[in-house]
Structures are given as C-alpha cells and as structure tokens.
C-alpha cells in the first residue's frame, strides 16, 4: 500500500511537471539556444531613441549640447552615404529629445538630400514631409516612431535597388552617433548609474559580424576597411561585465573613440 501510494505520488508529480512544461516557458535556456537565437537588424539592435530614453531616466541631459555641426550631403561613396544616413537619423532622435522643431526639420532635409544621392526618393520623401509636419506640430512622441519608420523605409528602398549591404551601414552609423552623443553627456555629467547604460556588448558584436559578411567590393571601400579596427577598440569599451561600472576616464575614452570614428565617417574623401 505504501509502495502504491509512492508510485501514485510519483506519477502525479511527473504528470504535473509535464503539464507545467507544456504551458509555461522553461526556466532556463541552453547555451545552444542562446547561440542559435534569431538576430534581426530591426529588432535585435535598439534604435538610438531607446538609448536616449534610458539616459533621460538617470539625468536631465541638455540635448542641444550634443548637436554637431551640419555634415556634408554630397558624398560620392555609397557606403559613406549609408553610414551618414544612419548618423543623421540618430541626430534626428537627439533633436526630438531637445524638442527643437527647427533642428528636426534641418536634419530631415539633410536625410532627404543624402537619400536622393542614393537614388531613393519617393517613399523617403513622403516620410520627410511627415517629419516636417510632426515637428511643426511638436508631436515629439510620434516623431520617434516616424524616425525609425524613415530608417526602415530607407533600408527597404536600398533592398529594392539591390543595395542590401548598405542597410548594415545605416544601422552602424546610427549606433556610433548615438553612442558618441550619450557617452559625451555621461563623460561630463558622470554618475555610475549612467555609465552602466553604456554596456552594449552584443550590439557591437552583431554589427561587426554583419560588417565581416559584407560583399568583398564593399569591404574594399577605404572607409569600410578602416571601420573594423576602430569598432574592435569600441567593443572592448562597451563589453564590460554586467556587475562592473566604467570610470569617468573610461567613458571619456569611449567618447573620444566614438568621436574619432564619426569624424572619419563624415570626412569627405
């Protein structure tokens, strides 16, 4: 009888575990599941707006202080145009955080000008008009979504004209510019909480792997060729362990490295 009760309890326990396993997500993912996780550019890599939103929680940044001088809009190298398009979209998020409608419109115009040099017009031009209208009406929340939609529209247009490889560079340009602006503010307004935001190991790992998979012709572009060593340097700076906090000097180094990279991306060749 005792044995039977023991068997019954064991059977019920197993049945209960099976029922739980069928309905509830497993409490642990295997190393293989983590390694094989899907990574999608427009899902896995956050927008610059997400980083800026996080910084808003730990301080009151003067976003206008993170503006940069207008960049040229007459590049001839397509990879350079793509990188700068991404950077301009990040500038758009900064202007939205600053709630500066004129700056948003100026950046919107620069995005359209650069997009035209790539031959992508129609859809992006429509987005440009929307950006202008939303800026005119101070619709800051909607503008953040509109900027991401514009970025995706640019990428879609690139795909349609068989420039898929350039989409990675748009994402990369945006990430570098966002990191430059945020690290710049943290370097001068240091707090441990803000510094920990800069931990982004998987993003740069993914961007470097996508860069390494670009077609040889794109990789041979002098600007693209010079990106990886600099990104490797940045990777070391944003890949600190979760429990660790970068010092103010560490953040300054990161900002300088990001600024150096942005400077090389915007310089006319």
């Amino acid at each position, binding site marked *: 009888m005792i044995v039977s009760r023991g068997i019954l309890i064991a059977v019920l326990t197993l049945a209960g575990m099976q029922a739980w396993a*069928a*309905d*509830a*997500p*497993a*409490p*642990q*993912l*295997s*190393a293989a*599941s*983590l390694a*094989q*996780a*899907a*990574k*999608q*550019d*427009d*899902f*896995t*890599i*956050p*927008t610059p*707006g*997400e*980083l800026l*939103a*996080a*910084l808003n*929680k*730990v301080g009151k940044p003067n976003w206008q202080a993170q503006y940069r001088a207008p960049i040229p809009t007459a590049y001839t190298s397509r990879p350079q145009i793509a990188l700068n398009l991404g950077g301009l979209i990040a500038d758009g998020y900064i202007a939205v955080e600053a709630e500066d409608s004129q700056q948003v419109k100026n950046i919107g115009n620069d995005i359209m000008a650069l997009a035209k040099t790539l031959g992508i017009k129609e859809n992006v031009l429509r987005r440009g008009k929307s950006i202008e209208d*939303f800026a005119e009406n101070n*619709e800051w*929340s*909607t503008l*953040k*979504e509109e900027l*991401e*939609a514009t*970025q*995706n529209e640019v*990428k*879609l247009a690139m*795909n*349609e004209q068989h420039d*898929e490889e350039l989409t990675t560079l748009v994402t990369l340009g945006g990430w570098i510019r966002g990191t430059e602006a945020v690290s710049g503010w943290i370097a001068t307004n240091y707090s441990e*909480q803000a510094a*920990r*935001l*800069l*931990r*982004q*190991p*998987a*993003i740069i790992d*993914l961007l470097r792997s996508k860069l390494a998979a670009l077609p040889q012709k794109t990789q041979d572009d002098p600007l693209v060729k010079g990106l990886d060593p600099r990104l490797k340097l940045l990777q070391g700076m944003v890949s600190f362990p*979760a*429990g660790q906090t970068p010092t103010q000097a560490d953040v300054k180094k990161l900002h300088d490295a990001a600024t150096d990279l942005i400077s090389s991306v915007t310089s006319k060749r």
Partner: protein
Amino acid sequence: MKIPLLRTITLVITICCGAMPGRGDVATDTETAAHRSVLDLAGAFTNDGFKMRDGAYTSTLKAGESAVVEVNLYSGNQYWFAVSTADAKSAVSIGVYNEAGNMVKSEPFASRAADGAKDGAMDTDAASTNRAAAGFAPEASGPYYIKITNTTGVPATCCLIYSYK
C-alpha cells in the same frame, strides 16, 4: 492619444497592403493576420506612452516548437514584448531570459477580449489565448532573449513586436 492611434491605423493599413514594415520581403496572409493581431494588442501599451518598434519578428512554429530572439535592452527603460498568432484558436506563450539563459521575472499581460467582452472586462484566459505579452524593466543593460512557444497541437504563424518607454 490621437496621433498614436493614427500611427497604429497607418501600420495596419501598411501591413494590409502586403508589406511588413521594416522587412524587404512580402508578408503572407497569415503573417499579416498575426501582425495585425499583435498590433491590436500592443496598442494598449502605446496608449500608455510606450513607443512601438517598427520591426517585427515573424515565424511559423510547429506544434510545441519555440523560437528564441535576441534583443538588447537598456536599464531604466520599461519594455513590453507582445506576440500573437494568426489563428485565434491557437495558443502561444512568451518568456524573457537574461544572457546567462535564466528566466527573469516579467509582468504577464491579461489582454482585453477584442470581441464580445463587456467594456473594460479583462480576458482572464489571456495566458491561454493566441496573444500573450510580457512586461520587463531590466536592471542591467545588455542582451536578453525572448522565447515564444506555440503551445497548441498544430503549426502556428507567430508575430513578435516590442514597445519601450
């Protein structure tokens, strides 16, 4: 409130026209239906000040099959991850995991029944319906993993999106 609603309507119109925003390929009917359903669910978060990401992850899962998607989150932000299948009779679950693969505590979302429910009534069976969502506020910035599982006995097309604030 007016503009986010307009934006959601625009997104729905966009996917109804056959293109998944942020994707270069043309969506199938079931992908479109799953996307429309998940946008409907995530509209609740938009009304609460969350910004919806334009990208979506779509996958057709066999019975009992799961998909794991990497995301990169920032501490201080709040996130909602929402998933839906195309078929209202199917069921899906969602879980959030940290970079060590451990499940983290997330807030489940009980969706309001889209049809037939009294105004304001909560759908208490939300966890076993074809729509599920998990709210999460990370303490550390870095990579996280979203696992979606088809908990029914038939294949289902799932669409996963996220919002942040």
